[in-house]
């Protein structure tokens, strides 16, 4: 299977890096403008008919979103992962919702969690999990969840420390380390 897909990508004259491969499993990294072409080719020519997941990773140091599509073959259950890097500013990725209907939901989630636009997805403006979200998308790494949580939801009592031993000592007096039980001496 790996060889078949690698040949297919070579046929397309598309440069690619093999990240990892083992039996029934292949992970390739391709340029961002060729990713959709490779995915559709794998569907048509290699029988990768099932879209399992679209995931995104925020690589803020390199200023990119790394998107990964995971495809599975319904014939021999082999897996193909295709990764591509897209620029972080005003990120826009072609939608695959017309080919795989499942992609619509994944793309809506990524739109909400990372702010990645998917032109061509008919339902991308609908709320998925967050209703009425007003901040920057929460899964971006420049979003400070702790600061947001303290500002929005507050705290019952501010935490001065997180040491349970000190907490118990403050309430009940001195905390003594429990001595482990000795083994019974054999007679």
């Amino acid at each position, binding site marked *: 299977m790996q060889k078949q897909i690698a040949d297919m990508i070579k046929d397309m004259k598309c440069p690619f890096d093999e990240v990892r491969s083992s039996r029934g499993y292949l992970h390739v990294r391709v340029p961002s403008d060729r990713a959709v072409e490779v995915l559709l080719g794998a569907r048509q020519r290699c029988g990768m008919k099932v879209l399992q997941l679209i995931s995104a990773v925020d690589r803020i140091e390199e200023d990119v979103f790394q998107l990964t599509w995971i495809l599975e073959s319904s014939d021999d259950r082999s897996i193909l992962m295709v990764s591509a890097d897209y620029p972080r500013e005003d990120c826009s990725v072609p939608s695959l919702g017309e080919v795989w209907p499942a992609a619509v939901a994944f793309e809506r989630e990524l739109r909400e969690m990372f702010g990645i636009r998917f032109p061509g997805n008919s339902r991308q403006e609908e*709320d998925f*999990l*967050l*209703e*009425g*979200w*007003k901040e920057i998308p*929460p899964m971006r790494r420049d*979003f400070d*969840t*702790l600061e*947001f*949580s303290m500002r*929005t*939801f*507050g*705290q*019952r*009592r501010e935490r001065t420390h997180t040491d349970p031993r000190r907490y118990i000592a403050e309430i009940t007096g001195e905390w003594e380390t429990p001595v482990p039980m000795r083994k019974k001496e054999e007679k």
Partner: protein
Amino acid sequence: MYCNRIPDRPDERKRVWDRVDEMARANSLWVTAYGTGCGAIELRPLHTSRFDMERFGIAMRPTPRQADVLIISGYLAVKTLKRVIRVYEQMQDPKYIVALGSCTINGGMYFDSYNTLNVLDRYLPVDVYVNGCMPRPEAIIDGFTLLMRKIKDGQALGWRHYRENLDLYRNNQKEIIHDWDLPDYNW
């Protein structure tokens, strides 16, 4: 179809007959079958023969109209809070809330999450908190016996507090629910 009128303020409890009512209420607590977090799974052993909550007259009901107790079982997301408010306000008075787990008390392990509440009793009146992550069935039964004792003593008056301070609770709820599309009161 719903009634949009704000509920009247209830009378003070004066009658002797109230004591009898409270005795009867305490011994037949009917719980709305509604789960919000991981606690919904942890509640299942309570129904079965080992821990058997029917010994205490606690039974599950399929609809909020027939129930007295709402269990907030674990972390509560903002999206779920909206549904919980609807469920809680549809229940008949008197009604009680039992909150399980450290998530409802101070956020627990999700205290820095972008989407879960940290302090539940800003938004809904809680009668009994049961701590633990998740609490064991014995702890939940202990919480229910505490609730029964509070009802018999006439102290479980969260529902009355909610009615009298509806504006305060509404303000707190609207602070975090940005796309408020509920009626003024859900009967």
